[in-house]
């Protein structure tokens, strides 16, 4: 694995390897000293062309907990308006001797283009409406943990489990990346949205689709609510926020009707009161904060796979550098 650009080009074996190592990586969060020496001397640049507090912080922590040198570069504004091409920005950072570029960009495809212009490893941290592979991996990670917790079976995974993804599928890089990953891990995916927010060609995706949330909700092991931007109503995607919520929001009523064991996911940031009610966001079955925690572990695992040599091997020393941080 040279880059992580999309889940579509990630092999099932690599995905499982990332997820399994992430389980080990997740233990560091419980330690007093959160530091592993495995990426010492490696340099990771978070190159963010778009604001993102959570994804940037998550990658930054992931790199730092693995002892990499991490710097954040914010490059907001289109390359056209700045007068520097994307190619020049990428080549400039590459020339400084960077080992990995973590790229967030409002334009679909930018990390794929960047990968052609650099010798560094490229991680797609979300590009336009195209892909967000580490989000899909953390979704898969959180889902597997949820299934294991509910069933009590430590060997259980995604097989035979159903994920209902609800909302603005058309503009969602999260949905696209989930769709390219979860079915290959064994999950059944149902996409729910009004017709205006379904992407073209969705009939050929390895998923089922529905316009009727209430019809499919009883089948969900996980219901994932996607953020819906209020501005979409100006593009005539739906009439009003109120109508959207009635049709496709996880309201208090729908929360009450969920069958036990259904977990609530949301990639954040949440629009409370629009796609998700406060009751649902804060419900005991909400796994939203677990997703955030999983994000750091998954990104540690991704950086390790890309930068620490043979991805088939485990870190030689997963133990902390300080005795106080003994493995649990």
């Amino acid at each position: 694995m040279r880059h992580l650009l999309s889940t579509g080009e990630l092999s099932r074996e690599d995905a499982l390897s990332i997820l399994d190592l992430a389980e080990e990586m997740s233990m560091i969060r419980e330690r007093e000293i959160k530091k592993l020496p495995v990426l010492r001397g490696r340099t990771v640049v978070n190159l963010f062309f778009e604001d993102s507090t959570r994804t940037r912080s998550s990658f930054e922590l992931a790199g730092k907990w693995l002892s990499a040198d991490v710097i954040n570069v914010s490059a907001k504004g289109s390359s056209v308006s700045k007068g520097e091409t994307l190619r020049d920005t990428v080549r400039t950072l590459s020339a400084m001797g960077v080992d990995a570029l973590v790229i967030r960009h409002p334009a679909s495809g930018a990390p794929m283009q960047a990968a052609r212009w650099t010798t560094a490893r490229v991680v797609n941290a979300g590009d336009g409406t195209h892909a967000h592979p580490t989000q899909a991996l953390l979704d898969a990670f959180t889902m597997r943990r949820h299934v294991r917790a509910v069933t009590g079976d430590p060997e259980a995974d995604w097989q035979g489990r159903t994920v209902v993804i609800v909302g603005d599928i058309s503009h969602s890089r999260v949905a696209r990346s989930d769709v390219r990953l979860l079915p290959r891990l064994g999950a059944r995916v149902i996409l729910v949205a009004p017709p205006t927010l379904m992407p073209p060609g969705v009939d050929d995706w390895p998923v089922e689709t529905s316009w009727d949330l209430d019809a499919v909700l009883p089948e969900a092991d996980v219901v994932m609510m996607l953020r819906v931007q209020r501005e979409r109503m100006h593009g005539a995607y739906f009439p009003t926020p109120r109508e959207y919520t009635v049709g496709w929001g996880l309201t208090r009523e729908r929360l009450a009707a969920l069958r036990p064991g259904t977990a609530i996911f949301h990639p954040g940031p949440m629009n409370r009161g629009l796609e998700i009610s406060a009751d649902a966001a804060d419900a005991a079955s909400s796994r939203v904060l677990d997703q955030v925690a999983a994000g750091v572990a998954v990104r540690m695992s991704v950086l390790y796979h890309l930068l620490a040599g043979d991805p088939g091997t485990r870190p030689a020393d997963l133990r902390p550098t300080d005795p106080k941080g003994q493995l649990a």
Partner: protein
Amino acid sequence: MTVTPLGASVPARLLITGVARPDGSVGDVYVDGPVLADPAGAPADVDRVDGTGLVVLPGLVDPHVHLRQPGREDAETIRTGTAAAARGGFTAVQAMANTTPVTDTAEIAAEVVRIAAAEGACRVIPCGAVTKGLAGEQLAELGLIHRATGTRCFSDDGACVADPQVMRRALEYVRPFDGVIAQHAQDPSLAGPDACCHEGDLSGRLGLGGWPIAAESSVVARDVELAALTGSRYHVCHVSAADTLDVIRAAKARGVRVSAEVTPHHLLLTTDLLTGYDTTYKVNPPLRPAEHLEALRRALADGTIDMVGTDHAPHAAQDKDHPFVDARPGMTGLEQALAVVIETMVAPGLLDWAGVADRMSYAPAALLGLDDQGRPVAPGEPANLVLVDPRARRVVDPADTASLARNNPYAGRDLPDPVRLTVCGGHVTYRRG
């Protein structure tokens, strides 16, 4: 390989022997300076070109190129763009109006003609803008542009004349001089600035802004009604989809004066090339799936589409090295146009050489109202011709070009390499070897 500007050469005397004409007959063609003459009258010591196994076509005419001058001389100039045209076998090109400044006044149009006369390697017809600044609101100086340069064709190409009332007025206004309005059919609401990929499976997967076919076909359908209402000539630029062909076919059956062009890239290249987000393949209208290519080829064969227009759109690298949605749309086309037509139309038997002469010379010359272009290769006619080797092939190298640009979508493809000699007004503007 040499390209010679018209202003820097003298008309040649040249006898091409044993060459096949578009109708299949074989004989000699005598270039006697600016006109073709009876080969029997050629002097004994005249320069001879062995035309055995070759085909002679009338000089090709391109109704749709972007030469970027004035304004973006770093991307292309009239000198380099017409040199590329000569290498492609063209003897006349129409330069679209979206330069800086826009060709919306007689002065800019006249300046293009002046530069072309001094530096060009083919004739250049300046296409006038339909509206001032291509803004789609007020009419450009259509009449003055016509008086100054003889231009009959007007287009806001790059932008659509979206307002139906403006379109209607433009169609009406150019009637006194038999003008024609050439439409870049793109409903700006259905296909806005972010639309950069054929709307379908791939745009959905890649997360690129979809460019639905209805954004083209619905504008053409509306315009056809306006052309019927006004009785004016209407031309559809770069038709990209089968649905639009249905509209054009129905309009022609009704007797509406509509014509249409197709680009070489829409005859050969498909949407799936966008998979890697290579901005070389970003073009407007976008590349379409294979079923549309098939329909476009059949339509060019049966005459629903009247002609080929390259939409040669040279760009500096710095305008392409951006994220896909931000990169400039457009690809070069002059030098490979005939190659693509041979590959997609002649080789499969959809078009014979007479058909190529019509679609790439006679029909575009008629659209533009040119008297000295698009004429048969026969004694007494102007000496505009291209000598074609129908069998030669070559892998396209984007660096092997007269254009300043390298955004060549055929790079690395094995294609016909037909053009051996181009003669424009008796001047040898390009000769292989």
